[in-house]
Protein backbone atom coordinates (compact mmCIF):
# COMPACT_ATOMS: atom_id res chain seq x y z
CA UNK A 1 0.00 0.00 0.00
CA UNK A 2 1.18 3.48 -0.72
CA UNK A 3 1.78 5.71 2.24
CA UNK A 4 3.04 9.19 2.84
CA UNK A 5 5.05 10.71 5.64
CA UNK A 6 3.80 11.89 8.99
CA UNK A 7 4.64 15.43 7.93
CA UNK A 8 1.59 15.41 5.77
CA UNK A 9 -0.68 14.90 8.74
CA UNK A 10 0.53 18.09 10.31
CA UNK A 11 0.21 19.86 6.98
CA UNK A 12 -3.22 18.43 6.49
CA UNK A 13 -4.98 18.98 9.78
CA UNK A 14 -4.59 22.77 10.07
CA UNK A 15 -5.82 23.17 6.51
CA UNK A 16 -8.80 21.01 7.27
CA UNK A 17 -9.74 23.09 10.25
CA UNK A 18 -9.46 26.31 8.28
CA UNK A 19 -11.30 25.29 5.16
CA UNK A 20 -14.11 23.11 6.42
CA UNK A 21 -16.66 25.77 5.83
CA UNK A 22 -19.87 24.10 4.75
CA UNK A 23 -21.12 21.16 6.77
CA UNK A 24 -23.84 19.48 4.73
CA UNK A 25 -27.33 19.98 6.16
CA UNK A 26 -28.33 16.33 6.09
CA UNK A 27 -25.77 15.44 8.78
CA UNK A 28 -26.89 16.22 12.34
CA UNK A 29 -24.67 18.79 14.00
CA UNK A 30 -24.02 16.61 17.04
CA UNK A 31 -22.67 13.94 14.70
CA UNK A 32 -20.30 16.48 13.24
CA UNK A 33 -19.02 17.42 16.67
CA UNK A 34 -18.66 13.79 17.61
CA UNK A 35 -16.48 13.20 14.56
CA UNK A 36 -14.29 16.21 15.00
CA UNK A 37 -10.67 15.06 14.65
CA UNK A 38 -11.67 11.51 15.51
CA UNK A 39 -12.14 10.19 12.00
CA UNK A 40 -9.54 7.94 10.45
CA UNK A 41 -10.99 7.48 6.99
CA UNK A 42 -11.27 10.55 4.83
CA UNK A 43 -12.81 10.56 1.37
CA UNK A 44 -11.87 13.46 -0.86
CA UNK A 45 -14.56 13.71 -3.53
CA UNK A 46 -13.59 15.85 -6.48
CA UNK A 47 -16.32 17.97 -8.03
CA UNK A 48 -15.43 16.70 -11.51
CA UNK A 49 -16.67 13.24 -10.58
CA UNK A 50 -20.20 14.60 -10.50
CA UNK A 51 -20.04 14.80 -14.27
CA UNK A 52 -19.00 11.14 -14.44
CA UNK A 53 -21.66 8.81 -13.03
CA UNK A 54 -19.42 5.76 -13.22
CA UNK A 55 -16.62 7.57 -11.33
CA UNK A 56 -19.06 8.58 -8.62
CA UNK A 57 -20.44 5.07 -8.52
CA UNK A 58 -17.00 3.68 -7.72
CA UNK A 59 -16.78 5.93 -4.68
CA UNK A 60 -20.28 5.02 -3.54
CA UNK A 61 -19.44 1.33 -3.99
CA UNK A 62 -16.39 1.73 -1.80
CA UNK A 63 -18.39 3.58 0.86
CA UNK A 64 -20.94 0.77 0.91
CA UNK A 65 -18.16 -1.72 1.66
CA UNK A 66 -16.80 0.15 4.67
CA UNK A 67 -17.92 -1.71 7.83
CA UNK A 68 -20.83 0.25 9.26
CA UNK A 69 -19.19 0.94 12.63
CA UNK A 70 -16.14 2.47 10.95
CA UNK A 71 -18.27 4.30 8.42
CA UNK A 72 -20.51 5.87 11.04
CA UNK A 73 -17.90 6.66 13.67
CA UNK A 74 -14.58 7.07 11.94
CA UNK A 75 -15.33 8.26 8.42
CA UNK A 76 -15.73 11.73 6.97
CA UNK A 77 -15.64 13.22 3.50
CA UNK A 78 -14.63 16.47 1.99
CA UNK A 79 -16.25 17.68 -1.16
CA UNK A 80 -13.68 19.56 -3.14
CA UNK A 81 -14.89 22.29 -5.46
CA UNK A 82 -12.85 24.63 -7.61
CA UNK A 83 -11.66 27.97 -6.34
CA UNK A 84 -14.29 30.66 -6.42
CA UNK A 85 -14.14 33.51 -8.87
CA UNK A 86 -13.82 37.14 -7.92
CA UNK A 87 -16.84 38.46 -9.76
CA UNK A 88 -19.46 37.57 -7.23
CA UNK A 89 -20.13 34.11 -8.62
CA UNK A 90 -18.40 32.37 -5.76
CA UNK A 91 -21.41 32.49 -3.50
CA UNK A 92 -23.70 31.26 -6.28
CA UNK A 93 -21.36 28.39 -7.15
CA UNK A 94 -20.97 27.45 -3.49
CA UNK A 95 -24.71 27.31 -3.04
CA UNK A 96 -25.14 25.21 -6.19
CA UNK A 97 -22.52 22.69 -5.11
CA UNK A 98 -23.81 22.63 -1.59
CA UNK A 99 -27.26 21.75 -2.87
CA UNK A 100 -25.90 19.04 -5.16
CA UNK A 101 -24.00 17.40 -2.36
CA UNK A 102 -27.08 17.54 -0.16
CA UNK A 103 -29.09 15.68 -2.81
CA UNK A 104 -26.32 13.17 -3.39
CA UNK A 105 -25.90 12.48 0.35
CA UNK A 106 -29.63 11.97 0.86
CA UNK A 107 -30.06 9.73 -2.19
CA UNK A 108 -27.14 7.52 -1.16
CA UNK A 109 -28.01 7.46 2.55
CA UNK A 110 -24.61 8.89 3.46
CA UNK A 111 -24.36 8.62 7.25
CA UNK A 112 -21.09 10.42 7.91
CA UNK A 113 -20.18 14.10 7.80
CA UNK A 114 -19.33 15.80 4.55
CA UNK A 115 -17.79 19.22 4.22
CA UNK A 116 -17.27 21.38 1.22
CA UNK A 117 -13.90 23.01 0.66
CA UNK A 118 -12.36 25.10 -2.06
CA UNK A 119 -9.50 23.73 -4.13
CA UNK A 120 -7.28 26.69 -3.37
CA UNK A 121 -7.11 25.57 0.23
CA UNK A 122 -6.67 21.88 -0.37
CA UNK A 123 -4.80 21.05 -3.55
CA UNK A 124 -1.38 21.02 -1.90
CA UNK A 125 -2.50 18.25 0.43
CA UNK A 126 -5.02 16.25 -1.57
CA UNK A 127 -3.51 16.03 -5.06
CA UNK A 128 -5.67 15.54 -8.15
CA UNK A 129 -9.00 13.78 -8.41
CA UNK A 130 -10.96 11.88 -5.81
CA UNK A 131 -8.88 10.20 -3.15
CA UNK A 132 -9.06 8.02 -0.09
CA UNK A 133 -6.90 8.98 2.89
CA UNK A 134 -6.54 6.59 5.81
CA UNK A 135 -5.02 7.59 9.14
CA UNK A 136 -4.32 4.32 10.95
CA UNK A 137 -4.65 4.67 14.74
CA UNK A 138 -1.43 4.84 16.71
CA UNK A 139 0.50 5.21 13.48
CA UNK A 140 2.52 8.05 12.10
CA UNK A 141 1.58 7.53 8.47
CA UNK A 142 -1.15 8.54 6.10
CA UNK A 143 -2.19 6.03 3.48
CA UNK A 144 -3.27 7.73 0.29
CA UNK A 145 -5.12 6.16 -2.63
CA UNK A 146 -6.54 7.50 -5.87
CA UNK A 147 -9.99 6.47 -7.03
CA UNK A 148 -10.62 4.06 -8.57
CA UNK A 149 -8.80 1.75 -6.16
CA UNK A 150 -7.28 -1.34 -7.69
CA UNK A 151 -8.61 -4.72 -6.66
CA UNK A 152 -5.49 -5.30 -4.57
CA UNK A 153 -5.84 -1.93 -2.85
CA UNK A 154 -9.44 -2.66 -1.96
CA UNK A 155 -8.47 -6.00 -0.46
CA UNK A 156 -5.71 -4.35 1.57
CA UNK A 157 -7.97 -1.58 2.82
CA UNK A 158 -10.64 -4.08 3.74
CA UNK A 159 -8.05 -6.11 5.69
CA UNK A 160 -7.06 -2.97 7.54
CA UNK A 161 -10.67 -2.29 8.52
CA UNK A 162 -11.00 -5.91 9.70
CA UNK A 163 -7.92 -5.44 11.88
CA UNK A 164 -9.38 -2.29 13.40
CA UNK A 165 -12.57 -4.11 14.28
CA UNK A 166 -10.66 -7.07 15.80
CA UNK A 167 -8.64 -4.62 17.89
CA UNK A 168 -11.83 -2.98 19.06
CA UNK A 169 -11.04 0.27 17.29
CA UNK A 170 -14.36 1.24 15.78
Amino acid at each position, binding site marked *: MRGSSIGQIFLFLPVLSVFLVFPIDSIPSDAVEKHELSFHVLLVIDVSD*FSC*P*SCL*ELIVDFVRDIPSSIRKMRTAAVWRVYSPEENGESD*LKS*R*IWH*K*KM*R*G*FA*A*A*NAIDFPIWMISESGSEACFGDGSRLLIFPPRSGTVLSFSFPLTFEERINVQSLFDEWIQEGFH
Partner: protein
Amino acid sequence: MRKKPLWIVCGVLWFLSLRVGGPAFEKEEAVPIRIKEVLSIGSLEDDTLFQWVGIAADREGFIYVTDALDYSLKKFDPDGRMVGKQGQKGQGPGEFQAPRLLEFHEGRLYVTDQSRPGIQIFDCDLNYRGHIPVLFPISSFKVLDVNRIAVVKLEMKTGCEIEILNNKGEELRRVRFQTKQSPFLMDLVDLAADGRGGYFLVYIFRDQIVHVDETGAILWAQSLLGVKKVKRKKMSEMTLPTEVVYKDIALDSEGRIYVLGGHFSKNSSRDVYVLNGETGRLLGTFTLPDTSHCIHIDERDHLFARANDGVTLKMFKLLFSKERREYVR
Protein backbone atom coordinates in the same frame (compact mmCIF):
# COMPACT_ATOMS: atom_id res chain seq x y z
CA MET B 1 4.49 43.31 -60.36
CA ARG B 2 5.11 45.38 -57.24
CA LYS B 3 1.40 45.55 -56.52
CA LYS B 4 0.95 41.81 -56.39
CA PRO B 5 1.70 41.41 -52.65
CA LEU B 6 -0.86 44.14 -51.87
CA TRP B 7 -3.54 42.32 -53.83
CA ILE B 8 -2.72 39.12 -52.05
CA VAL B 9 -2.99 40.84 -48.67
CA CYS B 10 -6.33 42.41 -49.66
CA GLY B 11 -7.58 39.04 -50.83
CA VAL B 12 -6.58 37.37 -47.59
CA LEU B 13 -8.19 40.16 -45.53
CA TRP B 14 -11.40 39.87 -47.55
CA PHE B 15 -11.46 36.13 -47.02
CA LEU B 16 -10.82 36.52 -43.30
CA SER B 17 -13.59 39.11 -43.03
CA LEU B 18 -16.03 36.42 -44.10
CA ARG B 19 -14.96 34.23 -41.22
CA VAL B 20 -14.81 36.82 -38.46
CA GLY B 21 -17.77 37.45 -36.18
CA GLY B 22 -19.20 33.97 -36.10
CA PRO B 23 -21.15 32.06 -38.69
CA ALA B 24 -22.21 33.72 -41.94
CA PHE B 25 -25.94 34.27 -42.36
CA GLU B 26 -28.01 34.01 -45.47
CA LYS B 27 -29.12 37.62 -45.22
CA GLU B 28 -32.34 37.28 -47.19
CA GLU B 29 -33.55 34.73 -44.68
CA ALA B 30 -32.15 36.21 -41.50
CA VAL B 31 -34.74 36.23 -38.74
CA PRO B 32 -34.06 38.11 -35.50
CA ILE B 33 -34.86 35.66 -32.75
CA ARG B 34 -35.23 36.40 -29.08
CA ILE B 35 -36.22 34.30 -26.12
CA LYS B 36 -38.28 35.26 -23.12
CA GLU B 37 -38.23 33.29 -19.89
CA VAL B 38 -41.71 32.09 -18.96
CA LEU B 39 -41.02 29.47 -16.30
CA SER B 40 -38.23 28.52 -13.91
CA ILE B 41 -38.20 25.26 -11.94
CA GLY B 42 -35.78 24.52 -9.10
CA SER B 43 -34.06 27.05 -6.89
CA LEU B 44 -30.86 26.93 -4.88
CA GLU B 45 -32.82 26.45 -1.67
CA ASP B 46 -35.42 23.82 -2.50
CA ASP B 47 -34.98 20.08 -3.13
CA THR B 48 -36.75 20.05 -6.49
CA LEU B 49 -33.85 19.45 -8.88
CA PHE B 50 -30.26 18.50 -8.11
CA GLN B 51 -28.81 17.80 -11.54
CA TRP B 52 -31.40 17.32 -14.23
CA VAL B 53 -30.20 15.64 -17.41
CA GLY B 54 -33.02 14.56 -19.74
CA ILE B 55 -36.23 16.44 -20.46
CA ALA B 56 -39.53 15.87 -22.24
CA ALA B 57 -42.92 17.57 -22.22
CA ASP B 58 -46.40 16.35 -23.16
CA ARG B 59 -49.18 18.10 -25.04
CA GLU B 60 -50.86 19.27 -21.83
CA GLY B 61 -47.71 21.11 -20.78
CA PHE B 62 -46.54 18.65 -18.12
CA ILE B 63 -42.78 18.51 -17.94
CA TYR B 64 -40.70 15.40 -17.17
CA VAL B 65 -37.03 15.32 -16.24
CA THR B 66 -34.44 12.79 -15.18
CA ASP B 67 -32.30 13.79 -12.22
CA ALA B 68 -28.92 12.07 -12.07
CA LEU B 69 -28.07 13.07 -8.52
CA ASP B 70 -31.08 11.58 -6.78
CA TYR B 71 -31.62 8.79 -9.35
CA SER B 72 -35.14 9.83 -10.22
CA LEU B 73 -37.71 10.68 -12.84
CA LYS B 74 -39.78 13.78 -11.96
CA LYS B 75 -43.01 15.27 -13.25
CA PHE B 76 -44.00 18.95 -13.09
CA ASP B 77 -47.32 20.57 -13.91
CA PRO B 78 -47.46 23.47 -16.40
CA ASP B 79 -46.93 25.92 -13.52
CA GLY B 80 -43.71 24.19 -12.48
CA ARG B 81 -45.01 22.41 -9.37
CA MET B 82 -43.60 18.93 -8.84
CA VAL B 83 -46.51 16.50 -9.01
CA GLY B 84 -44.66 13.21 -9.15
CA LYS B 85 -41.35 11.55 -8.47
CA GLN B 86 -40.31 8.00 -9.25
CA GLY B 87 -37.18 6.00 -8.82
CA GLN B 88 -34.30 5.35 -6.53
CA LYS B 89 -30.84 4.00 -6.89
CA GLY B 90 -30.82 0.37 -7.95
CA GLN B 91 -30.90 -2.19 -10.72
CA GLY B 92 -34.54 -3.22 -10.45
CA PRO B 93 -37.57 -2.19 -12.51
CA GLY B 94 -38.13 1.55 -12.25
CA GLU B 95 -34.77 2.11 -10.55
CA PHE B 96 -31.79 3.99 -11.87
CA GLN B 97 -28.01 4.04 -11.66
CA ALA B 98 -27.49 7.15 -13.79
CA PRO B 99 -30.75 8.23 -15.49
CA ARG B 100 -30.06 10.16 -18.63
CA LEU B 101 -31.99 10.61 -21.90
CA LEU B 102 -35.75 11.00 -21.84
CA GLU B 103 -38.32 10.86 -24.64
CA PHE B 104 -42.10 11.24 -24.53
CA HIS B 105 -44.31 9.51 -27.08
CA GLU B 106 -48.03 8.68 -27.02
CA GLY B 107 -48.39 8.78 -23.26
CA ARG B 108 -45.21 6.86 -22.57
CA LEU B 109 -41.85 8.01 -21.21
CA TYR B 110 -38.71 6.30 -22.48
CA VAL B 111 -35.67 6.62 -20.22
CA THR B 112 -32.07 5.53 -20.74
CA ASP B 113 -29.50 4.96 -18.03
CA GLN B 114 -25.83 5.62 -18.55
CA SER B 115 -24.85 2.72 -16.31
CA ARG B 116 -27.51 0.20 -17.33
CA PRO B 117 -28.33 -1.15 -20.77
CA GLY B 118 -31.77 -0.77 -22.32
CA ILE B 119 -34.64 1.69 -22.19
CA GLN B 120 -37.17 1.75 -19.35
CA ILE B 121 -40.76 2.73 -20.10
CA PHE B 122 -43.07 4.65 -17.75
CA ASP B 123 -46.58 6.01 -18.12
CA CYS B 124 -47.57 9.63 -17.58
CA ASP B 125 -48.03 9.00 -13.85
CA LEU B 126 -44.46 7.67 -13.71
CA ASN B 127 -45.53 4.07 -13.17
CA TYR B 128 -43.04 1.58 -14.54
CA ARG B 129 -44.48 -0.14 -17.63
CA GLY B 130 -41.70 -2.17 -19.11
CA HIS B 131 -38.24 -2.39 -20.51
CA ILE B 132 -36.78 -2.50 -24.00
CA PRO B 133 -33.63 -4.60 -23.98
CA VAL B 134 -30.85 -2.87 -25.86
CA LEU B 135 -27.46 -4.48 -25.45
CA PHE B 136 -25.25 -1.56 -26.44
CA PRO B 137 -24.79 1.86 -24.79
CA ILE B 138 -27.08 4.52 -26.27
CA SER B 139 -25.71 7.91 -27.22
CA SER B 140 -28.93 9.37 -28.59
CA PHE B 141 -32.39 8.11 -29.49
CA LYS B 142 -35.79 9.16 -30.81
CA VAL B 143 -39.08 7.31 -30.54
CA LEU B 144 -40.53 7.29 -34.07
CA ASP B 145 -43.73 5.40 -33.20
CA VAL B 146 -44.82 2.78 -30.68
CA ASN B 147 -42.87 0.09 -32.47
CA ARG B 148 -39.87 1.94 -33.88
CA ILE B 149 -37.04 3.64 -32.06
CA ALA B 150 -34.08 5.26 -33.79
CA VAL B 151 -30.93 4.73 -31.75
CA VAL B 152 -27.36 5.97 -32.10
CA LYS B 153 -24.86 3.60 -30.53
CA LEU B 154 -21.97 4.64 -28.37
CA GLU B 155 -19.50 2.06 -29.59
CA MET B 156 -15.93 1.82 -30.74
CA LYS B 157 -16.43 0.90 -34.38
CA THR B 158 -19.97 1.65 -35.43
CA GLY B 159 -20.39 5.32 -34.68
CA CYS B 160 -21.79 6.36 -38.05
CA GLU B 161 -25.10 4.57 -38.28
CA ILE B 162 -28.56 4.72 -36.79
CA GLU B 163 -30.25 1.50 -35.73
CA ILE B 164 -34.00 1.25 -35.97
CA LEU B 165 -35.25 -1.07 -33.23
CA ASN B 166 -38.70 -2.43 -32.49
CA ASN B 167 -40.23 -2.33 -29.01
CA LYS B 168 -38.56 -5.63 -28.16
CA GLY B 169 -35.14 -4.18 -28.91
CA GLU B 170 -34.78 -6.17 -32.13
CA GLU B 171 -33.09 -4.53 -35.05
CA LEU B 172 -35.42 -3.64 -37.92
CA ARG B 173 -32.85 -1.93 -40.11
CA ARG B 174 -29.80 0.31 -40.13
CA VAL B 175 -29.27 3.73 -41.63
CA ARG B 176 -25.62 4.24 -42.43
CA PHE B 177 -24.86 7.91 -42.94
CA GLN B 178 -21.10 7.80 -43.37
CA THR B 179 -18.90 5.16 -44.89
CA LYS B 180 -15.49 6.39 -43.78
CA GLN B 181 -14.37 5.14 -40.39
CA SER B 182 -13.06 7.77 -37.96
CA PRO B 183 -11.25 7.65 -34.62
CA PHE B 184 -13.30 6.70 -31.57
CA LEU B 185 -16.15 9.09 -30.78
CA MET B 186 -15.38 11.46 -33.66
CA ASP B 187 -18.51 10.34 -35.51
CA LEU B 188 -20.74 10.66 -32.48
CA VAL B 189 -23.97 12.45 -33.34
CA ASP B 190 -27.15 13.61 -31.73
CA LEU B 191 -30.23 13.14 -33.87
CA ALA B 192 -33.68 14.56 -34.53
CA ALA B 193 -36.23 12.88 -36.77
CA ASP B 194 -37.53 15.02 -39.66
CA GLY B 195 -40.94 13.30 -39.65
CA ARG B 196 -40.51 12.01 -43.21
CA GLY B 197 -38.20 9.11 -42.54
CA GLY B 198 -35.01 11.16 -42.54
CA TYR B 199 -32.87 12.60 -39.76
CA PHE B 200 -31.06 15.76 -38.82
CA LEU B 201 -27.72 14.89 -37.31
CA VAL B 202 -25.37 17.13 -35.41
CA TYR B 203 -21.83 15.92 -34.85
CA ILE B 204 -20.61 16.40 -31.30
CA PHE B 205 -16.91 16.58 -32.12
CA ARG B 206 -17.00 17.86 -35.70
CA ASP B 207 -18.21 21.09 -37.21
CA GLN B 208 -20.95 19.43 -39.18
CA ILE B 209 -24.73 19.34 -39.25
CA VAL B 210 -26.36 17.13 -41.87
CA HIS B 211 -29.79 16.14 -43.10
CA VAL B 212 -30.00 12.56 -44.33
CA ASP B 213 -32.90 10.69 -45.91
CA GLU B 214 -34.17 7.27 -44.82
CA THR B 215 -31.32 5.55 -46.68
CA GLY B 216 -28.62 7.70 -45.09
CA ALA B 217 -27.98 9.75 -48.24
CA ILE B 218 -26.98 13.31 -47.38
CA LEU B 219 -29.56 15.92 -48.46
CA TRP B 220 -27.53 18.87 -47.18
CA ALA B 221 -24.55 19.47 -44.91
CA GLN B 222 -23.64 22.62 -43.03
CA SER B 223 -20.61 23.82 -41.06
CA LEU B 224 -21.15 26.94 -38.99
CA LEU B 225 -18.05 27.60 -36.97
CA GLY B 226 -15.04 26.95 -39.18
CA VAL B 227 -13.66 24.34 -36.80
CA LYS B 228 -11.12 22.12 -38.52
CA LYS B 229 -9.93 20.07 -35.59
CA VAL B 230 -10.76 19.50 -31.94
CA LYS B 231 -8.26 18.74 -29.21
CA ARG B 232 -7.84 15.11 -28.27
CA LYS B 233 -6.26 13.57 -25.23
CA LYS B 234 -4.94 10.14 -24.50
CA MET B 235 -6.78 8.54 -21.61
CA SER B 236 -5.86 5.00 -20.65
CA GLU B 237 -5.66 3.10 -23.92
CA MET B 238 -7.77 5.49 -25.96
CA THR B 239 -7.38 8.93 -27.45
CA LEU B 240 -10.57 10.88 -26.87
CA PRO B 241 -11.79 14.26 -28.08
CA THR B 242 -11.97 16.85 -25.31
CA GLU B 243 -13.65 19.78 -27.09
CA VAL B 244 -17.29 19.72 -28.06
CA VAL B 245 -18.36 21.53 -31.22
CA TYR B 246 -22.13 21.05 -30.91
CA LYS B 247 -24.02 19.82 -27.89
CA ASP B 248 -27.58 19.17 -28.95
CA ILE B 249 -30.18 19.52 -31.67
CA ALA B 250 -33.92 20.22 -31.48
CA LEU B 251 -36.75 20.97 -33.92
CA ASP B 252 -39.67 23.38 -33.66
CA SER B 253 -43.13 22.84 -35.11
CA GLU B 254 -42.20 24.74 -38.30
CA GLY B 255 -39.30 22.44 -39.08
CA ARG B 256 -36.57 24.85 -38.00
CA ILE B 257 -33.48 23.28 -36.47
CA TYR B 258 -31.93 24.56 -33.26
CA VAL B 259 -28.33 23.62 -32.52
CA LEU B 260 -26.62 24.33 -29.21
CA GLY B 261 -22.97 25.28 -29.67
CA GLY B 262 -20.15 23.99 -27.49
CA HIS B 263 -16.59 25.11 -26.81
CA PHE B 264 -16.06 26.91 -30.12
CA SER B 265 -19.07 29.19 -29.93
CA LYS B 266 -18.65 32.82 -28.94
CA ASN B 267 -20.66 32.07 -25.81
CA SER B 268 -19.75 28.50 -24.98
CA SER B 269 -22.73 26.23 -24.26
CA ARG B 270 -25.09 29.21 -24.59
CA ASP B 271 -25.25 30.12 -28.29
CA VAL B 272 -28.08 28.51 -30.22
CA TYR B 273 -28.01 28.45 -34.03
CA VAL B 274 -31.32 28.33 -35.88
CA LEU B 275 -31.31 26.71 -39.33
CA ASN B 276 -33.85 26.22 -42.06
CA GLY B 277 -34.63 22.50 -42.02
CA GLU B 278 -35.22 22.35 -45.77
CA THR B 279 -31.99 23.99 -46.85
CA GLY B 280 -29.69 24.00 -43.85
CA ARG B 281 -29.27 27.77 -44.14
CA LEU B 282 -28.55 29.67 -40.97
CA LEU B 283 -31.51 31.86 -40.04
CA GLY B 284 -30.24 33.43 -36.84
CA THR B 285 -28.72 32.89 -33.44
CA PHE B 286 -29.63 33.69 -29.89
CA THR B 287 -27.86 33.24 -26.59
CA LEU B 288 -29.16 31.46 -23.52
CA PRO B 289 -28.73 33.32 -20.22
CA ASP B 290 -26.86 30.38 -18.66
CA THR B 291 -24.80 27.46 -19.91
CA SER B 292 -26.70 24.31 -20.79
CA HIS B 293 -25.84 20.74 -21.74
CA CYS B 294 -28.94 20.39 -23.91
CA ILE B 295 -31.94 22.11 -25.43
CA HIS B 296 -35.44 20.76 -25.87
CA ILE B 297 -38.41 22.20 -27.74
CA ASP B 298 -41.92 21.02 -26.95
CA GLU B 299 -44.90 20.75 -29.28
CA ARG B 300 -45.91 24.33 -28.47
CA ASP B 301 -42.46 25.62 -29.31
CA HIS B 302 -41.26 26.34 -25.84
CA LEU B 303 -37.55 25.95 -25.50
CA PHE B 304 -36.13 24.34 -22.35
CA ALA B 305 -32.55 24.72 -21.16
CA ARG B 306 -30.49 24.32 -18.05
CA ALA B 307 -29.37 26.94 -15.54
CA ASN B 308 -27.30 26.86 -12.35
CA ASP B 309 -25.45 23.71 -13.41
CA GLY B 310 -28.58 21.61 -13.55
CA VAL B 311 -30.20 22.80 -10.34
CA THR B 312 -32.63 24.90 -12.37
CA LEU B 313 -34.71 24.25 -15.48
CA LYS B 314 -35.77 27.26 -17.56
CA MET B 315 -38.58 27.42 -20.09
CA PHE B 316 -38.48 30.14 -22.77
CA LYS B 317 -40.90 31.46 -25.32
CA LEU B 318 -39.36 31.85 -28.80
CA LEU B 319 -39.96 35.27 -30.33
CA PHE B 320 -39.42 35.80 -34.05
CA SER B 321 -39.39 39.56 -34.55
CA LYS B 322 -39.57 39.63 -38.34
CA GLU B 323 -42.50 37.30 -38.52
CA ARG B 324 -44.19 38.93 -35.53
CA ARG B 325 -45.10 35.50 -34.32
CA GLU B 326 -46.38 34.90 -30.83
CA TYR B 327 -46.37 31.41 -29.48
CA VAL B 328 -49.09 31.02 -26.89
CA ARG B 329 -48.35 28.86 -23.93
